[in-house]
């Protein structure tokens, strides 16, 4: 049970294509309908065929009865003709019946075997066509004679038997049905009783009934006497030999009707019809299985029709489902394209009204989402720019405070020239710092700014260290984020020079390598282990001592933000030997366009990559 539930659940979870679902649903529906229709059609046909078979058998039985009655009526007429036109008008004492009897026989010889007239004591008066009696034959012992003598007024039909009356030298023996009656004979004016015998050829009756037994489906007709003795049966010899059985004894009790009977396990429809005058019963037997045998062709036809219709329905379902699902599949393909990353997919609009509406809605949704994403990008850019501005603005207050403090001390110490120089340097420094609000400036200006700064610091530190600048000329027109050298110099002074006692050296180098620019600030201060130096760029700032408070991390972040992840600071340091901090930036010639582009905060790496491809 659990498994079935699991299967069902699993089945429910399965996703099928829309076309498959429509196709399967329609196909199941059509198959069910067709099968139902087929079964109903077949049953209808079966019922009609059964009725038709029963009706046919009844008609056949009626027709056979009519033919048989007609035949027997003819026989009676022959007997009547013989009696009323010949025997009654002949005195057998003086005249012979021979000519008239021969004439009557000849006229009906296809149906008759013989006609004979006997006196009441069993002596032959006349017979046709053979008049020679077999020696020793006692007709009075024969049943037909006894029947006729017993009931004077009636015709008597015997059951079939082999005629045993006349000596036929051609060795012929005939099965006959004897029609006998009592007649009045006139001999020499005296009347006496006699028996007129008309022996009908049994083969005529047999042929008549064989015509009704040409059906090969198992249906047959047989004839029996009122007491159930079989007169004709298509398998009479087999019945006699015990190779076949018939339900004649029971059928003898049936009235003229159709009865359903079960004989030796076989269901049959038995129709009974009584033949007038003789009391014989004509029985039609229709085995029920003959219905199904006859319906084989119809069953095949119904199956063929149902199968063809199902096939046509399946194909039609396929076409219709494909037509219905095609616009949806195309719409689905558009969505898949969108899912795959194409932010500007060609959304399909078409098909039925509903699908078209879906397409339009989806297209407008995609456009809205794209717009929203653009807005988010712009917003992010704005945010980044704000961050940059905030970082830069951290420099000014510390430095200004320190420098002004130095100037105050100079003036106080009446070192006016130094104060003037300092103020001049400070003014130059601020001019470059402001740079009309630009964030990106020429390397030349940045170097100049660095020089100003170092000049100020040298005065403050009373020339306790040496500074030299070795900047290659060809990088001076390159772009750089402003105020990146100054923090490095500040770092070198505060952490490298403070304990050097006049032996400190700071080297500032600038050069170009391939398409990149490198600016290095190297000191011979205390330095630190490489691992510790590497940590400086991961946000582990050393505790502030003096200066602007803007650390290496700040510079590193600004460079990366502006030029991309590939750029920034590199620190090389060795304990007691000093430290070298390197600025790595791309070489971008300073123009109004490049300056504005970098200022906009857009990612330079994508531009530089495409620029590289273009240049290659």
């Amino acid at each position, binding site marked *: 049970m659990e498994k079935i539930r699991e299967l069902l659940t699993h089945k429910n979870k399965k996703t099928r*294509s829309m076309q498959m679902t429509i196709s399967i649903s329609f196909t199941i529906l059509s198959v069910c309908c067709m099968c139902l229709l087929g079964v109903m059609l077949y049953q209808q046909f079966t019922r009609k065929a059964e009725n038709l078979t029963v009706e046919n058998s009844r008609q056949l039985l009626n027709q056979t009865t009519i033919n048989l009655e007609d035949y027997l009526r003819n026989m009676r007429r022959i007997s009547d003709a013989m009696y009323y036109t010949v025997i009654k008008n002949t005195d057998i004492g003086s005249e012979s019946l021979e000519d008239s009897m021969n004439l009557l026989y000849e006229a009906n010889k296809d149906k008759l075997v013989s006609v004979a007239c006997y006196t009441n004591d069993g002596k032959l008066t006349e017979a046709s066509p053979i008049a020679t009696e077999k020696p020793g034959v006692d007709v009075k012992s024969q049943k037909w004679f006894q029947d006729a003598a017993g009931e004077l007024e009636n015709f008597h039909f015997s059951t079939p038997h*082999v005629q045993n009356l006349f000596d*036929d030298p051609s060795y012929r023996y*005939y099965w006959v049905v004897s029609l006998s009656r009592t007649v009045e004979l006139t001999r020499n004016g005296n009347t006496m009783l006699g028996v007129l015998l008309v022996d009908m050829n049994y*083969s005529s009756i047999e042929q008549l009934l064989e015509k009704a037994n040409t059906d090969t489906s198992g249906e047959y007709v047989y004839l029996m006497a009122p007491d159930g003795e079989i007169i004709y049966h298509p398998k009479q010899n*087999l019945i006699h*030999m015990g190779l076949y059985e018939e339900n004649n004894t029971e059928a003898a009790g049936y009235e003229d009707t159709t009865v359903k009977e079960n004989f030796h396990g076989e269901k049959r429809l038995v129709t009974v019809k009584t033949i007038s005058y003789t009391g014989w019963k004509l029985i039609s037997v229709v085995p029920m299985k003959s219905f199904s045998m006859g319906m084989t062709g119809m069953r095949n*036809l119904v199956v063929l029709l149902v199968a063809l219709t*199902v096939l046509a329905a399946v194909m039609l379902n396929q076409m219709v489902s494909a037509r219905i699902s095609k616009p949806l599949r195309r719409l689905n393909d558009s969505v898949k394209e969108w899912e795959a990353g194409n932010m500007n997919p060609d959304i399909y609009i078409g098909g039925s009204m509903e699908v078209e509406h879906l397409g339009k809605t989806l297209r407008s949704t995609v456009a809205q989402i794209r717009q929203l994403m653009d807005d988010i990008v712009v917003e992010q850019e704005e945010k980044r720019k704000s961050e940059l501005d905030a970082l830069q603005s951290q420099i000014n207050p510390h430095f200004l405070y320190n420098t002004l403090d130095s100037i105050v001390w100079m003036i106080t110490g009446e070192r006016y020239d130094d104060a003037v120089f300092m103020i001049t340097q400070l003014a130059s420094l601020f001019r470059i710092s402001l740079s009309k609000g630009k964030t990106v400036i020429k390397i030349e200006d940045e170097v100049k700014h660095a020089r100003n700064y170092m000049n100020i610091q040298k005065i403050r530190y009373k020339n306790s260290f040496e500074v030299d600048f070795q900047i290659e000329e060809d990088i001076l027109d390159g772009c750089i984020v402003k105020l990146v050298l100054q923090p490095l110099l500040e770092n070198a002074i505060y952490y490298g020079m403070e304990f050097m006692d006049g032996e400190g050296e700071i080297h500032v180098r600038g050069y170009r390598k391939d398409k990149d620019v490198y600016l290095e600030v190297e000191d011979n201060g205390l330095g630190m282990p490489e691992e510790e130096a590497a940590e400086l760029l991961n946000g582990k700032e050393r505790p502030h001592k003096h200066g602007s408070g803007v650390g290496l991390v700040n510079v590193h972040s600004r460079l990366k933000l502006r030029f991309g992840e590939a750029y920034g600071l590199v620190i090389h340091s060795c304990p007691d030997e000093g430290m070298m901090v390197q600025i790595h930036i791309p070489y971008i010639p300073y123009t109004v366009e490049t300056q504005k582009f970098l200022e906009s905060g857009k990612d330079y790496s994508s531009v530089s990559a495409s620029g590289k491809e273009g240049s290659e």
Partner: protein
Amino acid sequence: MKKNRISGLLFLLVILAVIGYSAHEMVNQGKDEDYISVSVVVNDSSNVRWDAFRSGLEQGAEDNHVHLNLVSTGTFQNAQEEHTIVKRELDGEADGVIVEPYSSEADVILPTESAKPVVLVGTGIETDRLFTSVMTDHGKLGKSLADAVIQGKAVKVGILSGNQSQLGMRQRLKSVKDKLEEAGIEISWILSEKELDKKMRNVEYFAEHPVDTVISLDNDDTEKAVDIILNDDRISWKLYGEGRSEKLIYYLDKGTIQELAVPNEYYMGYQSIVLAAQNIRYYTDKTEQAEVEFYMVSKDNLYDEETNRILFPAVR
């Protein structure tokens, strides 16, 4: 998706198979595919003595869906003639044959190479191989004839022994001889079919070798014996014989023949077809030996209903 495609394809194949099957059934409807063909080879096939046998064959063929081919034959002069016909039928269209062996030698009658079913009727053959057969108990038939002769107070008996190359005839003769010898009745002469033909040309033979009773073991010999009686006033045999032709029945009726042993040849014909059809349809090597009853018919019971059915199964 792939599973769906396979299911769809299978469904389509099933539908196409149903269409194919139904169409095939409709096209072939009414064709008598289930009919089989059986040939029947008997000596002198047009002889009226086969009438009852033929009726039985025809009824059996109708009931068992058999195309019946009663091969037209004359009187065989030797077994080779029958062998040729049987071989031709087995090599031809026949699915099986029903044979009345002219001789008891199997090799002489039946081609050894054929695997088609063979049903023997009337008489058997001497072989180690078992054949399906439909025949009377010849020993019993001979004994019944001998009993009738003994009851008729016979003193000196002549025997017409028919075709003694047939096993059945030899069995009949042996049985008759044993019974008569047991009863102490003298057997004056025994003539086979061919010897009888020769003796019939010498009309004096029977006058010179008088007997009071003759037993004929074969229909044709019984008819010849009737002819001898009718043609020679000096001969007044009490005739007992086997046979069923209308001529014999007529002379039984006239009193020329005392008693006839009549095998139920309608049953023999019907049953032989039934067994042949079974062997052919079910490809079975199973053999069956069906015994055919015989009836002793005298003038007293000639017109009994039961006798009539045996003697005259075919309606004229």
